[in-house]
């Protein structure tokens, strides 16, 4: 299933300058794996060595924080939008 991943400005240099890209995947984890396969450097930027997300990275599926859903196991439908954003904003 094709999913649109929106890439934040801070990561675009590691993603050939793209603001968004399309990858295959049925869950957020699969989508991230697809993204990392295409842009290897992104893995070290947003994930720890054990594969979990760094604590200042937020991921949203259709605008909802995945921590309110099933985390990395959150299912993503065809054409869904996955957004990666820095957590350090606001207040």
């Amino acid at each position, binding site marked *: 299933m094709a999913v649109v991943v*929106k890439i934040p400005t*801070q990561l675009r*240099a590691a993603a050939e300058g793209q603001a968004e890209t399309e990858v295959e995947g049925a869950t957020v984890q699969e989508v991230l794996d697809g993204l990392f396969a295409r842009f290897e450097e992104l893995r070290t930027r947003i994930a720890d060595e054990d594969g979990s997300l760094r604590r200042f990275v937020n991921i949203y599926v259709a605008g909802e924080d995945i921590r309110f859903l099933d985390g990395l196991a959150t299912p993503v439908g065809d054409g869904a939008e996955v957004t990666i954003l820095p957590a*350090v*904003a*606001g*207040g």
Partner: protein
Amino acid sequence: MAVSHLECKECKAEYPLEALYVCDRCFGPLQVAYQHEHPEDIGELRRRIQGGPQNIWRYADFLPLAGGPPGPSGRLASRVGLPAGCTPLIRADRLAAHLGLREVWVKNDAANPTHSFKDRVVSVAVARARELGFETIACASTGNLANSVAAHGAALGLESYVFIPADLEEQKVLATGVYGTRLVGVNGNYDDVNRLCTELCAEREWAFVNINLRPYYAEGSKTLAFEIAEQLGWELPDRCVVPIASGSLFTKIAQGFAEWRELGLLDSASGSAPQLPRMSGAQAQGCSPVASAFAAGDDVCRPVKPDTIAKSLAIGNPADGPYALELARRSGGSVDAVSDEEIRAGISLLARTTGIFTETAGGVTTAVLAKLAERGEIDPDERVVLVITGEGLKTLDAVRGTFESIEIEPTVASFDAAAAIAA
């Protein structure tokens, strides 16, 4: 000036003093770094601060502007913008007696131009935004920041965009729109507004004061600490009770105290090295990700969907949550949460014992102070500062129905009859 560069709080990578807020390498938050020369003559430095403007720019040496204060200004006269800060620190003996404490002070930051502490952070962020050449300012707000950004935009002739949850208190909406800003109500909670603005920030050449200008913005909160210390005669309190929304104010007040202690600017009553205060954080039970993590012994916060009358604190996904937790533990402090009923009681307690009418966030803070006192967690000899961040007139619904009044005909007989019943 002592301001040096931006650095990542996590990996310490260095960045130039531009409109940046996230570390490219590890996604950690950026903060302003300084290189202060140790002052040779503390007395001279204190006199220079005391002789400065009656607003936050008296602390310009410790703020992140390349060009120093933005222009001449005093408490009531300003050639540039809205002068924030130098708000009253009031000894609250009646409140202290009610709580069984010896020394309680109220830092009343409702006495700022738009009636909340946000004028401090916005003053700094907007001054830096102008140095960097921005012509439009913006923010994601729970209300008080909206008032402040709109007003500062008007004062300085900058275009402004203010994004708020559409269901905000009417008083806060009206007190924003009046300044002629572009006011955008978003159908969602604050965290939705914040996500939207983080996305917009990448697409627009705007200074979002609490996103791409956030490292500078956050520094403004240190001025609360500087003022408290200066007003206490260059001494520190033993404890500060501070509301927590994102956790930025909470951590920056502590940082302000630490910076001044490091420079040797502070005395202690005993003559020994001054102790940094215990930092006690205050949240509403309807939005208490930091208090929950503190109670559970966690070092990260699990986000929540806010449901509380304290809308100015309704951030379910606090950006500085991990740092607030770490500070509360390191300082020997705490993070507590109170119910909506306790918040209303807190507003009433502060009003009836000090004459200060605060908004719901101040009700949270006062209620947490009362809770700590009741639990016996505060040594009766402690000098406590209660940080009141906003004005009661902005959240009037919170006090509706909390007191009685009598209505009479304009005759003495009518008054006597009603007074007899009331008595």
